[in-house]
């Protein structure tokens, strides 16, 4: 049981929570994730750690409500407990001084991008961040990203904030302007697919942090398998970061829909119960 000590709404559907997890706050590294479960009938699901405060013994998570489990988590208030929380899982981001890093985050992907940006900045890199969302309300953690970036470009689909256009528009502008040594992309699979296609065109090494379906998160189930460079890899133990140019994003998109009918059924059932 892990107590929630803080909660902040970034938007109607995006919530930041700060959770007591003393050991994980000390042992986690940029790129790691945790598996959570809310309630005794709850589902296990992964969330990438968005930050940690070892002195307070807390970690920060950002969740967007999309299904039953994320809705249940987002509904918890400070003082409430998360039934189960385990981590840190996954390989940490390989951070070193490379030169100039271009970090691109889409939607809630900006949350897991934050500790990676921080780590690259601290390692002495020049960091340019492009953060993108559908509209102004969905742009999150702008201030925190600015703190660890030399430059921040904001893109919105509808132009309600920053510049109008997709994340790739902002990325390409930077790529054409200066030499980029490495790219980091985190966000919805479709966004990462197009971001990877773009950086491949310019031959820039790119890491993508994948968010696949998982059950245990420790290598046991294989639900998270992805094809990378023609080989099946497990996102939980081999990833979550992979060479974006080698990832079969179309397969990943297909696999993300693997439980869509079941998830929809569960969500309808959940709403039905809540409304009665």
């Amino acid at each position: 049981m892990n107590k929630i000590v803080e909660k902040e709404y970034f938007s109607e559907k995006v919530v930041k929570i700060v959770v007591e997890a003393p050991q994980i706050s000390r042992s986690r590294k940029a790129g790691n994730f945790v598996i959570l479960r809310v309630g005794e009938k709850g589902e296990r699901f992964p969330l990438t750690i968005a930050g940690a405060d070892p002195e307070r013994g807390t970690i920060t998570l950002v969740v967007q409500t999309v299904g039953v489990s994320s809705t249940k988590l987002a509904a918890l208030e400070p003082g409430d407990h998360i039934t189960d929380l385990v981590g840190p899982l996954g390989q940490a981001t390989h951070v070193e001084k490379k030169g100039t890093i271009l970090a691109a985050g889409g939607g809630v992907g900006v949350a897991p991008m934050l500790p990676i940006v921080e780590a690259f900045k601290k390692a002495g890199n020049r960091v340019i961040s492009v953060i993108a969302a559908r509209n102004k309300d969905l742009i999150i953690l702008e201030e925190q990203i600015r703190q660890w970036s030399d430059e921040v470009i904001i893109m919105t689909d509808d132009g309600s904030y920053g510049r109008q256009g997709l994340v790739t528009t902002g990325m390409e502008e930077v790529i054409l302007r200066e030499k980029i040594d490495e790219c980091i992309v985190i966000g919805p699979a479709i966004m990462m697919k197009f971001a990877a296609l773009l950086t491949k065109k310019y031959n820039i090494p790119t890491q993508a942090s994948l968010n696949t379906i998982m059950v245990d998160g420790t290598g046991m189930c294989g639900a998270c398998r992805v094809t990378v460079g023609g080989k099946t890899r497990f996102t939980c133990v081999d990833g979550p970061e992979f060479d974006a140019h080698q990832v079969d994003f179309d397969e990943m998109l297909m696999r993300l829909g693997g439980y869509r009918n079941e998830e929809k059924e569960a969500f309808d059932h959940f709403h039905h119960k809540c409304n009665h």
Partner: protein
Amino acid sequence: MSIDPETIKKERSTGWREALRAKTKNKDRIAVERVHMPELEPGIRVHHQDREVNRGLSLAQASLEATRCMDCVNPTCIEGCPVSINIPKFVKYIENGEVLQAAATLKETNALPAVCGRVCPQEKQCESRCFYVEKLNKPSVAIGHLERFAADFERESGSCNIPETLPPNGIKVATVGSGPAALAFAGDMAKFGYDVTVFEALHEIGGVLKYGIPEFRLPNAIVDFELENLRKTGVKFVTNFIVGRTATFDDLKDEGYQGFFIGSGAGLPRFMEIPGENYNGILSSNEYLTRVNLMGANSEDSDTPVLKGRNVAVIGGGNTAMDSVRTALRLGAERATIIYRRSEVEMPARIEEVKHAKEEGVEFMTLCNPVEYFADKNGRVNRMRVVRMGLGEPDTSGRRRPIVLEGSEFDLHVDLVIVAVGVSPNPLVPASLPALKVSRWGTIIVNEDNMQTSLPEMFAGGDIVRGGATVILAMGDGRRAAEHMHAFLETKRT
């Protein structure tokens, strides 16, 4: 781990054993037919994931079965048991009406008899070495059924003996994992007086006994009862904790832990690496069984989804394959098929599981192997291509090697495929201990005599050492590790 033959002999010549032998003539013992385990009707049980198929023997059935055992001078059955249970002794206690004594005998060498009585492949172990099989060409004494009977009797009697423990010595030791190997280790170390903590990565204690073996074969209540007994002997349980990740081994050493037993299991499911294997609706048996057994995905109120199939194919011939295919039936499959590349004789599954599966309507396509999968426009599997196999010379496992029969491909309609072709060792623990010696398969290398790894304070056992074995072998490892870690820590102290 073995019992000294002198002890076996001495116990055999105790008065009550001699009296029992004198009471009934061997001729009359042999005349008794082997007992049939009462079972839930196949037509009923296929609708219930949570109802145990085997109902257990009655006292009368067990007593009669126990009389079949002739209390041999040379009890070869003991040699067939990986933990050398004193089989004639416990069986004779049942015949003598002292069932609690029978249970106590089992517990001398087996930490979880109620579990082993249900899941051990007895026909390949103790029962294969029974005098009835070796010399009389008759069905063996039903040692497994009797083991289960004694353990269940004790549990249900409410007079369960909590093993006596030595006074606490204040030394902290930890297990990594909470499956059969770790639980057996923990039980013995607690008896020796150690302060034992079991660390488990999942949110439930029990490892494969909980996430893997279905309720219809091993009810969770049985496992929970054993866990409660361990708790009573002072064993502590910590869930949601990955040793090496949540905290490092060094962190735990700083907290005073002096010995570690790694029983983290063979976590990683193997796939066949054939085209189309990543389509939706093709999943590992680990994923399928975890969703159902651990997460309760078959029940309405669980948030965890599980894919249900009408035409389900399960690839493999082991117990996990049988558990998966029978689960699929219970979740509503119209057709559930085992696809196995060798013939039924080579199947590693327990004979009883194969029998139960057949009774429930599972189809067996042996000497067949999948070569490719096809999917609909949403990426959900809808067809698989299978090739027929022949059998060649025996391979290193002693089983005849399967050979592809060229040109024999045919297609099957399927909407769910469960791949149960084995597991690989979980890399999480070895990855966090670079100095730990592992084999090229990723298993932890130990000194087989004492289960000690290349790091002296670390011992290991079960599937992380063996790559994939049975509950009983894992428990045997745990117990051997406990014995030797105890000796190791004693030497360190003095």
